């Protein structure tokens, strides 16, 4: 063996060693990083439950990298398998995050549906309460007359003397009637006009009828179907008080609204 070949061999060996040294450092770092990563996913019970396969693959790749690191000249293989191991760990963690999010989303979805139902219920309840309240108000304004059903009286003060048009002060009560009829869609009404005995009979019949009609018109304008409204004018018939006194006459000038029962059965007209 010549000196030349010895020197060459030494050079090659030194080159190998230095290469191995660099590669060895790099692979050692990669191995450590992958090992740390694997450790964290391995100890996470959620990851183990949700992505066990990825954890196993991370472990297998890591073991392979570890085994290769004891061989000469296998630096790039070590780095490669450490890389794969790390990726598997990261994938396991992502899958876990996603699955946990989905689990939470499923719970939130149930909560959302529960709240939606509760909201619908509370809205419904408030409408019902409102309806009930309104019904009580209407009942308070009406006088139950067994032979004619529920009757509400709109007094003389809601009209100007001799005029058929409703005053704006009647708005409140008219709106209440409209709401009541909207909440009770099967009820119908008969609107009856009356006057006192002052003036001619024909004139009184006409005035009583047009007052009743003007109430009906307002109800229709506010959305009540005309098929639910009957209009009658009775002139000075059926007084509720004496016509001899001013107070009595004022009582007699009136519009009465007769409500049907809930099934739409209206008492016979007079």
């Amino acid at each position, binding site marked *: *063996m010549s000196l030349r*070949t010895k020197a060459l*061999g030494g050079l090659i060996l030194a080159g190998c060693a230095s290469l191995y040294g660099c590669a060895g450092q790099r692979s050692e770092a990669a191995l450590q990083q992958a090992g740390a990563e694997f450790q964290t996913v391995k100890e996470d019970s959620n990851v183990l439950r949700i992505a066990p396969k990825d954890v196993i693959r991370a472990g297998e790749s890591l073991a392979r990298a570890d085994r290769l690191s004891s061989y000469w*000249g296998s630096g*790039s293989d070590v780095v*490669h398998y450490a*890389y*794969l191991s790390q*990726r*598997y760990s*990261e*994938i396991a963690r*992502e*899958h876990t*995050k*996603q699955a946990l*999010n*989905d689990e*939470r*989303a499923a719970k*939130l*979805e149930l*909560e*959302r549906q529960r*709240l*939606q139902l*509760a*909201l619908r219920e*509370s*809205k419904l309840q*408030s409408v019902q309460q409102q309806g009930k309240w309104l019904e009580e108000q209407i009942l308070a304004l009406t006088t139950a007359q067994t032979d004619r059903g529920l009757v509400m009286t709109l007094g003389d003060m809601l009209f100007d003397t001799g005029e058929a048009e409703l005053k704006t002060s009647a708005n409140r009560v008219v709106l209440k009637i409209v709401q009541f009829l909207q909440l009770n869609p099967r009820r119908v009404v008969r609107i009856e006009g009356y006057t006192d005995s002052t003036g001619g009979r024909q004139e009184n019949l006409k005035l009583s009828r047009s007052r009743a009609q003007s109430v009906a018109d307002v109800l229709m304008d506010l959305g009540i179907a005309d098929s639910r409204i009957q209009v009658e004018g009775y002139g000075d018939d059926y007084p509720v008080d004496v016509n001899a006194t001013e107070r009595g006459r004022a009582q007699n000038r009136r519009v009465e609204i007769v409500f049907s029962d809930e099934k739409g059965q209206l008492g016979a007209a007079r």
Partner: protein
Amino acid sequence: MSIRPLFAAMTLVALAGCASDPAPNEQMRLTEQALEQASAVGATAADMPEMKLAEDKFNRAKGNMSDESFKNARMRAEQAELDARLAEAKVLTQKSEEQLTLLDTRIARLRKQLGDAQ
């Protein structure tokens, strides 16, 4: 006799071993599939660094395949496959987070309305 020729022979054998890696056709197919799957859920190289890595490595693996450098092709394709799978998983996680945010705002709105109603 020295053992040096033996070393040389072993090195040659090792090199030959590298060179005689079989063509990783199956792995290339797997990687391509993983890339397709990732882009199907909306992973793009533009906003996913893992996706960019996957595409670059897969392209280099294809180059290695035509050079018949099969070991490099296999390693790059294997890495690219996992890069793509990670990109896919991250996109899905992001989507699930967006879903959670949406649900949270909806629930907050419902609670507010319920509070107002009471």
